[in-house]
């Protein structure tokens, strides 16, 4: 196993750097800033999907409540940016978003990981919906339905340098965060910790019989997944300069699962691709076909892909290359 990993390492790094370079440079040739921003948004939503993939793909736990972590991260960033405009605001926003998601992660991990399969999924959904109601109705604190509007932070490094975010600098910043997260998540899934989680996915009773603490491993992964989702939420808040209760709503969680299924479960990069394809399909069909009925072909395409590409787009692509 170790030999296989070390053998694919150079190839992986070359491919990784090429993809990152393409994602960094290609937007410069886009005809207008709309497509640049759309790509940035896809990366953020892809990061959310990647966080969900950590659970679905590597532990076999389907979370229908990732919107909770995403929304908390977004509101954490929103509060930070409402309070301060200091040169450290960007980093404070990310930190507060992460902190909020961590608290939620501990809470959900503690109560949900005792359950399996559909019961875990339902519990995560229920937690997310409870917090959605709180955020939606607690208008004095959360802005209620109207959410929180704030000024976007300035891009700064340790307070030494500060500049307004441009469309491209925002894109590069998000790309850097997503790329680092991908490398980190990949490393985690290939670590002994990750291997135990995959063993739990394949055969939980046997993993427990070997002597591993299954609950502790699951809790660890739920918390890690919550942190990554919270980071994506914080980035989304910074990107849109807006936080909304909708980000806690179950539709957000549902779309995240769709990104996973579309892109390829258990691939980490696949969900990012899935998010891109889903957002792009909606955009193209609504613009060039019909703004009222565009979801019909999108839904049909999604159904066809699930039937004929059950392993997702990335899985299908690799399968074809392997042939």
């Amino acid at each position, binding site marked *: 196993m170790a030999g296989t990993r070390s053998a694919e390492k150079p190839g992986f790094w070359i491919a990784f750097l090429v993809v990152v370079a393409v994602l960094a440079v290609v937007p410069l040739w*886009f005809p207008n800033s709309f497509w640049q921003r759309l790509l940035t948004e896809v990366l953020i939503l892809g990061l959310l999907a990647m966080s969900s993939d950590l659970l679905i793909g590597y532990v076999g736990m389907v979370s229908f409540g990732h919107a909770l972590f995403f929304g908390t991260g977004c509101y954490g960033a929103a509060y930070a940016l409402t309070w301060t405009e200091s040169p450290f605001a960007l980093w404070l926003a990310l930190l507060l978003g992460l902190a909020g998601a961590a608290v939620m992660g501990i809470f959900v991990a503690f109560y949900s990981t005792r359950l399996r399969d559909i019961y875990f999924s339902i519990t995560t959904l229920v937690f997310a919906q409870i917090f959605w109601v709180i955020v939606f109705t607690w208008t004095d604190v959360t802005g*209620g339905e109207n*959410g929180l509007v704030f000024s976007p932070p300035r891009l700064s490094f340790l307070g030494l340098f500060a500049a307004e975010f441009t469309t491209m600098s925002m894109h590069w910043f998000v790309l850097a965060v997503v790329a680092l997260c991908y490398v980190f998540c990949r490393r985690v899934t290939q670590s002994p910790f990750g291997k135990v989680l995959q063993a739990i996915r394949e055969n939980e009773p046997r993993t427990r019989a070997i002597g591993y603490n299954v609950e502790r491993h699951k809790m660890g992964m739920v918390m890690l997944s919550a942190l990554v989702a919270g980071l994506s939420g914080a980035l989304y808040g910074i990107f849109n300069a807006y936080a909304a209760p909708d980000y806690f709503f179950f539709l957000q969680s549902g779309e995240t699962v769709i990104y996973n299924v579309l892109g*390829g479960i258990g691939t980490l990069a696949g969900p990012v691709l899935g998010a891109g394809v889903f957002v792009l399909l909606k955009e193209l069909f609504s613009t060039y076909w019909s703004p009222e009925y565009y979801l019909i072909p999108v839904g049909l395409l999604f159904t066809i892909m699930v039937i004929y590409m059950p392993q997702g787009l990335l*899985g299908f692509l690799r399968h074809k290359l392997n042939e």
Partner: protein
Amino acid sequence: MRQEGHDRRVDENVWRPGTITRRRFVGVGAASVAAAGTLGAAMLVPSPWRRAFGSEKPIRVGGIQPLTGPAAGGGLMAKVGQEVAAERINAAGGVNGRPLELIVEDSEGKPAAGIRKTRKLLTRDLVDVGQGGFMSNVCIACMPEYRRARIVNMIGVCLDTTITTSRCDRYTFRPFDYAPAQAVAFAPYLVNNIGKKWHILFADYAWGQSTRDAYRDGIQNQGGEVVDTTGIPLGTADMVPFLSKIRGDFDGLFMIFFGKDGVNVVTQAYNLGLHNKYRFAGDGAAVVAGTNLPAQREKALGFVGIDRYLPIFQGPLDTEHHRKFFDAVFEQSKQYDPNGILPDRYSQSNFEALNILKVGMEACDFRGREDTEKLIEALEDLQVYAGDDFPTGDRLLRKADHQAFTNEYIFEVVQGAGDTYQPKVLQVVPWQDTIVPPACQFV
């Protein structure tokens, strides 16, 4: 077991290393490049011209409406109102000799999608002015986008009070009424004609809460009293646990809801017999909208409400302007529903919003987005009068907060011909009597 076997087979197929040949790589790569090229070409294609208009470059008006999702019905009627207005304007020679090109995008009723589509309108379609917006949270999320782009944003439906108070924005205008103005118009009737003591029932979220506050102030300012308020979470199907606790000595039950919540609150309050003790009243036609009446039927009888528009021909609404508007919207709606859909407040406010933009653009000889400052000045304190462009009557678009004041119609639900139920106008409150002090500081 079967699933485990399937997973393993997929894994083996997907992850089998060392079988990627150059030919396969090139083949798949070429297919990927072709797909990317097709998408790229699609991205570069400009939006289609909606209408031929000589060689004149059109003035682009863009807006978002919820064309999918739970608010799609209302969003569609809002779009119909925009389309009718744009077609009328173009048929009459356009604006300053140039046609209007209307671009309507789907906000899905979500702030994130609304922001994405607004950015598309502003940076890709390069619209000259914005006109649209249905749900308040989406409008509020998108207002900064218009400010950053320095483009006028003429809102079509969004009701939240803060849009022209605490969140007011130099680039955003609301050319129709809002809760404080409705409360000022309605409170005298409530207190003097129905009773002094009221219990307010409201949808417990931002819009419901701000509207509750406006009516509480309005009733108290008229010498009345709000003895209690009850918030019901949005989307609550079973409201009985909330309604059954309502008791005490007061005259009227004032309801602040919309959509299916409006149907639920009226029918369930009626079923509990609250109508025998208290008079039902409510904010706007949100509770007893034309689309809700067929479900509420006799349970809404006697309900007293207020609205800026009613799809009936009575009193000041029995005019040639209104009939033209009514027929045009009904005809246009057949593009989406062969049976046609009756006009509502959403089609009305968008129709008049686009027309007030037209008046402003003509007044300042607007040529494009570079004339935004001229357009803002032309729209500020603009007064327009009843006519084909403004079938519901005169109005003022106040400079201090970019909030309009319109005529308000106080109505009661009565039994119509046969087995139908419809609103009957009780009183018209002229826009001059709806004015409230501005509460806005433009940044």
